């Protein structure tokens, strides 16, 4: 049997023009839920632009934008229950803000400060993971603990398309299948891993089909469609919680931005491809849908942007007002109780600070 002998459909609700192709999922009935989804995307977009500006002016370190991928996090975050756990990667602002992570915390982290991962409103979600795909492994352990304790909870872990080439991704989906763990692997297939296009990453036609290697479910969804993402991840989470049936959700998107602020995608990527992708992006179609089906007005839209702007500004203020760490704070969190060795080195450090400021 050849690797091309089967086809996986892509679940779609909203088409690029904002038309609904299938009945709205019950859970999204009512204007508020839909506006919530839209708001998350707009907030993420606005936050993203602000973060990039902060980076450009030297007020933030390297930052990985979410542009074009807001629908994934919007849908995932809404689909998750409070008691679920998120194990994110670095392009998950839209999910994280629905989980209680504060915008200023995200800024603090990319501003080069560990305190940004000490979420004040979220005890269990993991910090974003930089070493690619390693977080998938952690998700399986969290899921194991939930199952061990007979809890009706599940884990969502996320990664990029490039991450699916790594051993850790595979070992994680395999153990999740073998042990029937309540975990959903959401892959943001934005078609690029820095400069490497998906075609060089794998010969698999879809990421979803990687599920078959380990006997779990593989689902493809239009990642520019927040409704579809919500629906697919909701179902996946139900299967995970109720039946301990893990799955991969491949969300098709496109990285409209550079990889990070340290990257220049024009070095390796066609403008035409980018332009085409831009037409499919998630905010435009969602707005069009709200306008045509839910009486969303330009005034409301503008007000929303203004509101998000001011929320982001407040976050930036809070970020900038964050007091400095205590000197030598980095000694304090290596162990529950500092070792004698670290106490000694800390003294050394303070002696130096005293001598030279």
């Amino acid at each position, binding site marked *: 049997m050849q690797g091309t002998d089967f086809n996986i459909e892509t679940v779609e609700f909203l088409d690029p023009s904002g038309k609904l192709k299938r009945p709205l999922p019950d859970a999204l009935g009512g204007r508020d839920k839909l506006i919530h989804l839209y708001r998350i995307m707009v907030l993420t977009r606005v936050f993203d632009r602000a973060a990039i500006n902060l980076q450009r002016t030297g007020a933030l370190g390297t930052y990985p934008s979410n542009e074009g991928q807001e629908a994934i996090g919007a849908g995932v975050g809404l689909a998750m229950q409070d008691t679920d756990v998120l*194990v994110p990667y670095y392009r998950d602002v839209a999910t994280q803000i629905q989980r209680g992570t504060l915008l200023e915390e995200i800024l603090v982290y990319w501003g080069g400060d*560990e*305190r940004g*991962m*000490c*979420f004040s409103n979220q*005890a*269990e979600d*993991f*910090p974003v993971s930089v*070493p690619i795909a*390693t977080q*998938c*492994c*952690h*998700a*399986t*352990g*969290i*899921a*194991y*603990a*939930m199952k*061990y304790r007979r809890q009706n909870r599940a884990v969502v872990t996320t990664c990029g398309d490039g991450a699916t080439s790594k*051993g*850790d991704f595979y*070992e*994680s989906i*395999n*153990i999740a299948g*073998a042990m029937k763990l309540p975990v959903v692997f959401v892959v943001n297939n934005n078609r690029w891993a820095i400069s490497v296009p998906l075609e060089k990453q794998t010969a698999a036609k879809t990421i979803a089909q990687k599920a078959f290697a380990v006997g779990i479910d593989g689902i493809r969804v239009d990642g520019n469609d927040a409704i579809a993402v919500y629906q697919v991840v909701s179902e996946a989470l139900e299967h995970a919680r109720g039946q301990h049936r893990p799955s991969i959700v491949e969300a098709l998107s496109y990285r409209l931005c550079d990889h990070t602020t340290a990257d220049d995608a024009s070095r390796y990527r066609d403008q035409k491809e980018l332009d085409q992708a831009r037409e499919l992006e998630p905010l435009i179609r969602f707005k069009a849908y709200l306008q045509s089906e839910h009486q969303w007005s330009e005034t409301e839209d503008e007000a929303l942007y203004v509101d998000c702007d001011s929320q982001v500004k407040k976050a930036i203020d809070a970020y900038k007002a964050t007091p400095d760490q205590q000197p030598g704070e*980095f000694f304090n*969190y*290596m*162990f*529950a109780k500092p*070792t*004698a*060795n*670290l106490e000694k080195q800390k003294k050394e450090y303070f002696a130096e600070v005293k001598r030279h400021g």
Partner: protein
Amino acid sequence: MAEWTLLEAVKQAFAWELGADENVVVLGEDVGVNGGVFRATDGLQETFGAERVVDTPLAESVIVGMAIGMAAQGLKPIVELQFMGFIYPAVDQIINHAARLRNRTRGRITCPMVIRAPFGGGIHAPEHHSESTEALFAHMPGLRVVIPSSPARAYGLLLAAIRDPDPVVFLEPKRVYRLGKQEVEDNGAALPLDSCFVLRDGIDVTLVSWGASIKETLEAAGKLSQIGVDAEVIDVATISPLDIETILDSVSRTGRCVIVHEAARSFGVGAEIAAQLAGEGITSLLAPVKRVTGFDTVMPLYRYEDQYMPGVNRIIDAVKESMEYR
């Protein structure tokens, strides 16, 4: 009091803590029905169930990575890696995550877990079954590295490792797994994870070692006493954080130090001990610090492994040289 080998002591520590704390979970390849390839978990699955003594797929990276997730949820996972030569696929998870999770989240998420691996040569095992690369883990901030050398210390240190709120790499000297029994009280008492153990008092020279090499080091000390050299023997036990005070104190009395380890010499754990002697300890030194160690080669396959391992003769020669140094 029970009479146990080191291996039995390991199993008994497991049994105690599995019984005492339902958050403790053991996982690894073949740890379940088979009881581990060395039988360190023999019978535990039968007693505590397959959810607590868990056979995993063959995948070291996710085994450790999974344990990290478990630990974050308040379980206390104990991972068995079958041999130290197979720890490397998990090094990324150990260094980049287990050792850092507390710091990365400023204490919000922690990682109380034990990563066990049998280590060292001398049991006539196949390729990749004889490594001693404790130095790799000792160098990594955020990890404890613990190596017992007797049944009692195996029991007490393993209990301490399981209860410790941070990740511990626990390396078991498989060469002495079944070598001799010792009376150990099965009372659930832990030993400290920040102290060397002085196994023999002496005034002429300080011998510092750990793991299986303690055997040869004690033997050498015995023989040396017959020729009038009274050696102090220190079992480092917790390699990291290193209890350098006990060593400095001993050398301040003896003036001479010979370090014995099986791992390759260069950039090994012995180097750190010698470096501290060259630093703070320098005024104590009456002779060059000696290192009796494995060579800077791959451990030969089993037929020739004895050529590699630091034996009693090499220790005695080094001590003699040290004693003769004026």
